[in-house]
């Protein structure tokens, strides 16, 4: 809820050290290994084998890790300036001429500002454009101008578009290669900078359109995408102490949904189904799963972990993740309540 204009949002205590609203706060928990710029390094490597790959950005190469590609392949990089409409239209034109353009910007700008251009210039004709966007959901403390809390809701209604929400550095690396080889338009959410590596503990490979059961469990079935898969894996470990046995189904492809995997997992009796997403509660993975289960007559107890239908506060990410219920500790707290 928004407070009155200019009123202090929270009590300010003299001398208290405040957390800051860093632009790209690392989402890596303490002690978790990371890899630097997995998208940029993977694309730069792939471009050596695939001469059709070109990169475009709208003044955000450094902030989408595309600068790694640009440095390695300067003649295949197009700086389009702060102009997201021509970024997408030009990517469409390059795809028409047989190239595989990777166009990057922030998720807010792609989804809100350039929608018509992605829809009509790219998706309507299934052109081979990859739209890769940083700051998905709540991954910046800059407030609503930069927080793409509804990007998936916006894009899910667009025919022909594949939507990818990878979890960690490993997922990003494999997804980048997979979408480069796939012929058709793709929107991929990107965590940039130092990205945690967590899926190496599991027998995991990314495949477009496929969910993966990362761990099994008898009491709770988490269905999650993006960075929320890291959080539910941590929550699942924490909940072992409460003797709550959690399964984790990771859904890096939001569209098309892996309906077989969801139905098979949700049909197993006696499990609470919790969909966790870094996105508004409206129009994202949770609603997609809910509608599927209703259509198929599968009716487990169903809960959602998602951002509220609000313009969110500015602030430090850890504070905001706690405030809006997507931190690991909030996840654990809620599941305990739901499991009583």
């Amino acid at each position, binding site marked *: 809820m928004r407070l009155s204009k200019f009123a202090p949002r929270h009590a300010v205590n003299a001398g208290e050290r405040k957390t800051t609203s860093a632009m790209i706060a690392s989402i890596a928990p303490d002690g978790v290994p990371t890899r630097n710029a997995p998208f940029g390094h993977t694309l730069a490597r792939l471009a050596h084998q695939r001469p059709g790959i070109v990169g475009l950005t709208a003044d955000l190469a450094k902030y989408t890790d595309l600068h790694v590609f640009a440095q390695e392949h300067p003649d295949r990089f197009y700086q389009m300036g702060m102009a997201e409409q021509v970024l997408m239209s030009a990517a469409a034109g390059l795809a*028409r001429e*047989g190239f595989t353009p990777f166009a990057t910007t922030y998720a807010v700008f792609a989804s809100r500002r350039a929608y018509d251009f992605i829809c*009509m210039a790219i998706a309507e004709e299934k052109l081979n454009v990859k739209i890769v966007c940083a700051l998905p959901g709540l991954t910046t403390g800059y407030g609503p101008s930069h927080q793409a809390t509804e990007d998936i809701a916006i894009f899910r209604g667009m025919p022909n578009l594949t939507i990818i929400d990878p979890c960690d550095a490993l997922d990003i690396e494999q997804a980048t290669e997979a979408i480069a080889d796939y012929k058709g338009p793709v929107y991929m959410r990107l965590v940039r900078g130092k990205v945690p590596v967590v899926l190496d503990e599991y027998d995991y490979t990314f495949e477009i359109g496929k969910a993966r059961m990362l761990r099994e469990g008898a009491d709770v079935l988490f269905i999650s995408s993006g960075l929320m898969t890291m959080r539910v894996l941590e929550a699942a470990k924490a909940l072992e102490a409460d003797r709550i046995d959690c399964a984790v189904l990771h859904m890096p492809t939001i569209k098309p949904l892996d309906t077989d995997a969801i139905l098979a997992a949700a049909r197993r009796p006696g499990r609470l189904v919790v969909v966790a997403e870094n996105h508004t509660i409206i129009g994202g993975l949770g609603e997609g799963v809910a509608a599927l289960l209703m259509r198929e007559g599968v009716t487990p107890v169903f809960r959602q972990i998602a951002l509220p239908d609000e313009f969110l506060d500015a602030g430090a990410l850890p504070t905001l993740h706690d405030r809006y219920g997507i931190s690991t500790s909030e996840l654990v707290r809620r599941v305990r309540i739901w499991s009583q």
Partner: protein
Amino acid sequence: MADETTEFEMPRAGSNVSLAERAYRIRRHAVRMGEVQGQGYVGQALGVADVLAVAYFHALRYRPDDTQWEERDRFLLSIGHYAIALYAALIEAGVLPEEELETYGTDDSRMPMSGMAAYTPGMEITGGSLGHGLGIAVGMCLGLKRKQSDCFVYNLLSDGELGEGSTWEAAMSAAHHKLDNLIAIVDFNNLQADGPSTAMLSSEPVTDKFEAFGWHAQRVDGNDIESVRAAFDNARGLKDPRPRIIVCDTRMGKGVPFLEARDITHFIRVEPNEWALALEALEKGRPQ
């Protein structure tokens, strides 16, 4: 750079057909399509017919039987509702068969009311959401340069389309990337859905604006074939790193005097008995 003569004009029989005769036939095809539907953007088609005659029978390099030919010049129609005019030109060019004009706008036709790439051979892009064509052209020009191709990309846009911000993003981008293989053509009939374009959101002075954006700009009477031909030749022959634009002032309904004189609107009203009269009027003005 493209040859002075087109792939189409020289090798084929009938190359002695004048551009004025081509324009007449394009108008006739368009009026016949309008008659099928009892409506349509016939006013625009009549107005832009001379420009299309010069484009398709003087300037463009293409193969009527291979619309995906890699060496073709690309012609992008931003203005989806001008499809009737482009279908008429494609029929005259031999890309579409003439008898197909009777399907215009009907169910399952390859010729829908608003132009779409997936429906029609020779329709390079899906237009209709205005302000897309020039940006797509920028990407195609970049791609052609990557391939070291000498093909041109033409984009026909409307004066109303100059109101879209994306057109100006693309205009800046084209100049920034020195796209001398891009030729934009504006059909300036000064009419959009709610009234005169210059009274809705004026883009004047158009050529000054494009020059300030780093373009080579020309403005001609778009219903004077010789002027249009000279402008196309100039745009294609320039040794200049700038993208080129030709603003063509045209008259809605051109060639059918009673439609030219009508209180013209974006969607011109033609009574059922008037289609035959329109064809008669065109025939009267047919070049000898």
